[in-house]
């Protein structure tokens, strides 16, 4: 079994194919691609581009969830990082802007990690603090208004292209490879899983569980900050009230759709990102379909339920029994 794509990804890949097929039905031009100003243009690119923030969030979130934790603050961290990036963009170089925004994400992650790993607070409560306070901090930075900027460097980060692909997509791909290389190229992934599976046993076996937990929250904070910078760069402004609002839930959903258990102990980076793409493929399909917006959430809920049911061992077990019964009768 390869480390990055285990056989258990079948349900997710199937779900993605089915949703893509449905999108093709509601919108015949779904797979059309053309070049526009040296950049690929089409609904598929929209799916990748719009899915980037949640994909980045899910990269950090999946590691946190693997340790049996959860990070509710990622949406607020996005808002903080976006606010910092937008405020500095027109007066500082891109390197300074990125360092400040990602540094803020790192500090937020340290704070969450400190509360969980050192003070032993329950993750859901510990990160709830920053979820609430973080948006306030972001609003303080922007003074409650939408801070706009025109710095071409930062705008490029949201709207530019690399080899025809939007820059955000390239960044997300890079982060996936980097995270994968670090956690699966070493024993780190295994240690994270051990911490989530049984923290006490791992501790006794010599795993530095505290350091593990601290570092996954830090990574989650950095990923969220990067998502926040990209979201701000995309609209050329930081909207502290709305940036990343409720995206923590989409990130958790992406991880869960990717088959990672909220009880920790096992995770798949690639499937979490696939989960984010499933969510976005569905969102884009809904927007293209032309149904009244009142149906958006309903359609989303039904699709998510179906994908999760596909993964339920009990239900697939029932299907197996039913098939066997039919066979014996015949």
């Amino acid at each position, binding site marked *: 079994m390869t480390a990055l794509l285990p056989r258990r990804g079948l349900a997710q890949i199937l779900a993605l194919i089915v949703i893509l097929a449905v999108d093709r039905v509601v919108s015949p031009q779904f797979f059309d691609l053309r070049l526009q*100003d040296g950049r690929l243009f089409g*609904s598929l690119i*929209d799916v990748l581009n719009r899915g980037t923030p949640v994909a980045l969030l899910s990269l950090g979130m999946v590691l946190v969830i693997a340790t049996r934790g959860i990070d509710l603050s990622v949406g607020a961290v996005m808002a903080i990082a976006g606010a910092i990036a937008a405020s500095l963009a027109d007066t500082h170089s891109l390197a300074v802007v990125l360092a400040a925004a990602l540094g803020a994400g790192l500090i937020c992650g340290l704070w969450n990690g400190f509360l969980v790993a050192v003070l032993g607070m329950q993750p859901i409560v510990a990160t709830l603090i920053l979820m609430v306070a973080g948006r306030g901090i972001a609003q303080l930075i922007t003074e*409650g208004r939408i801070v706009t900027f025109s710095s071409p460097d930062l705008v490029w980060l949201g709207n530019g292209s690399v080899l025809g692909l939007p820059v955000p997509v390239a960044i997300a791909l890079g982060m996936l490879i980097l995270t994968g290389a670090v956690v699966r190229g070493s024993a780190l992934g295994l240690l994270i899983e051990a911490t989530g599976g049984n923290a006490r046993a791992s501790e006794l076996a010599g795993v530095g569980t505290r350091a593990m937990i601290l570092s996954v929250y830090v990574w989650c904070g950095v990923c969220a900050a990067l998502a926040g910078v990209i979201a701000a760069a995309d609209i050329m402004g930081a*909207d502290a*009230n709305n940036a990343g609002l409720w995206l923590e839930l989409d990130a958790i959903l992406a991880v869960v759709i990717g088959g990672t258990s909220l009880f920790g102990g096992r995770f798949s980076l690639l499937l979490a990102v696939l989960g984010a793409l499933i969510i976005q493929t569905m969102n884009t399909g809904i927007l293209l379909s032309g149904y009244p917006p009142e149906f958006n959430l309903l359609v989303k809920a039904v699709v998510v339920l179906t994908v999760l049911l596909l993964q339920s061992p009990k239900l697939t077990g029932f299907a197996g029994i039913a098939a066997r019964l039919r066979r014996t009768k015949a």
Partner: protein
Amino acid sequence: MILKALFAASATAALLLALPANAAELTIGFSQIGSESGWRAAETSVSKQEAAKRKVNLKIADAQQKQENQIKAIRSFIAQNVDAIFLAPVVSTGWDSVLKEAKEAKIPVVLLDRDIDPSGKELYLTAVTSDSVHEGEVAGDWLAKTVGAKACNIVELQGTVGASVATNRKKGFDTAIAKHANLKVVRSQTGDFTRAKGKEVMESFIKAEGGGKNICAVYAHNDDMMVGAIQAMKEAGLKPGKDILTVSIDAVPDIFKAMVAGEANATVELTPNMAGPALDAVAAFKGKGTVPPKWIQTESKLYTAADDPQKIYDSKKGLGY
């Protein structure tokens, strides 16, 4: 600190009452919701300007989006015996008892920007609000006039599903274009009043409508969504304002910036000046005893590129939007 401010405020109020020379000068308490949006911040700064213009002493209490803070503020204004109270209610219910207290103290209350539930109509002097159905109509009428007899496919970016402003702005627009058979809303989807969602939804509209070739105009329930939509159109190689007409509502500074660049065509103002008409109504009521109508509707003014958008941008950008 708040207590200290309250003491100071009541002390000044007492002083003002004690000095007959200042008797003509009004003191008005304003319970503002908080800083929920840029528009709200602009409303607060415009209120201060309007009060200063009329030499009215305006005390603003920020409620941080909480009704209990607003009720506390109103009680303290009553204790200070102000001449009138302005209230921008955060919710529409639960005001009866505190408004009765104000009525017993013979202090008139004026509602700003939002109305409260019908049971309390006799408890306030008047409500100064804009008519969001009318805003939609103004936008629709402009589009009908601009397009003329040409067939026009419109895409609509709605506000948050279920928000009354979104429902009303949709209703008004639909009524206005219903009179013209050549205008048709072909796609309508929510952009949650935000730039990011406005951009995302517009991207999908462009793809679904033949790369934007079938779209003649965009109508957005607020300017922020339109700013996002304009970016989406530019990235798709379209020229917003020329290939696709734009009309939105609110008149925030950034839409005037787009207008200067020729990328936006029209916006309908939701004026942040609710305090001006309210101050005039209170002055007339206090001076000559003129009872104002129960509802003072603010003007929903239409702005286009012909209105010197650069000048409007300069005048609006300092207001805190």
